[in-house]
């Protein structure tokens, strides 16, 4: 099987373009999932607040864990496309990690002053604000990562 260098170059460009377009078409992670994980953290913080009846704590945590498992299964088995690890790049992962850490920092920034003022459910309020922060910024971060991955593929 022989082809001309021009055809080979066209095939390579075509493959690269297809990959970049596909990566750009979908957010790198669904914001509903990260928002759901943040809500899970909020629920656990609420259920483990000192003074909560043990039966309530156990019931809420079991229900939340079931919801988390369902979300994870939906993500793993129902996504339109999940990027392969070979196209994931360090900058995107660092950006994602930075965003998660910033979200946790937002929770602490709200919870600590409230806890200092002896407000009940300070941790829950912190996690609620974190959830709102993640819901608002998650789609932007997911799109940013997708664009980075696509740009990397295009530059190969």
């Amino acid at each position: 099987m022989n082809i001309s260098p021009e055809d080979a170059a066209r095939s390579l460009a075509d493959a690269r373009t297809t990959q970049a377009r596909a990566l750009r078409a979908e957010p790198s992670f669904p914001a509903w999932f990260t928002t759901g994980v943040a809500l899970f953290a909020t629920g656990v913080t609420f259920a483990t607040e000192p003074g909560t009846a043990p039966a309530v704590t156990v019931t809420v945590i079991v229900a939340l864990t079931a919801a988390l498992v369902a979300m994870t299964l939906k993500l793993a088995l129902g996504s339109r496309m999940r990027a392969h690890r070979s196209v994931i790049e360090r900058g995107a992962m660092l950006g994602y990690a930075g965003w998660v850490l910033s979200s946790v920092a937002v929770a602490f920034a709200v919870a600590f002053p409230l806890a200092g003022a002896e407000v009940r459910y300070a941790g829950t309020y912190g996690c609620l604000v974190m959830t709102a922060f993640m819901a608002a910024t998650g789609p932007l971060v997911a799109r940013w990562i997708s664009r980075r991955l696509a740009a990397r593929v295009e530059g190969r």
Partner: protein
Amino acid sequence: MTGLDPVIHPPARLRIVSLLAAAEEAEFGFVRDQVEVSDSVLSKHASALEAAGYVEIRKGYVGKRPRTWLRLSARGRQAYLAHVSALQAIVAGSGISLTPE
């Protein structure tokens, strides 16, 4: 002997395989839209790639709707990378630049 893989080489198949190479798994409708082929054309190519052992097909549901997902097998990924290397070797030997414009 150029190392080009005749199973992957047709343009539509190369697009399908290259998309799957960038994905852990991709849903049939997503691949169809990105590669810009009809359901029947994608179905035909997917079956050929599955028969060659390059693609694995999984059927499932999203809610109550049936869905199909495609993924490149280890053998398919290896074949794709070898095919791309062969294309790059042909281009490299000619002095054509692959840098995007």
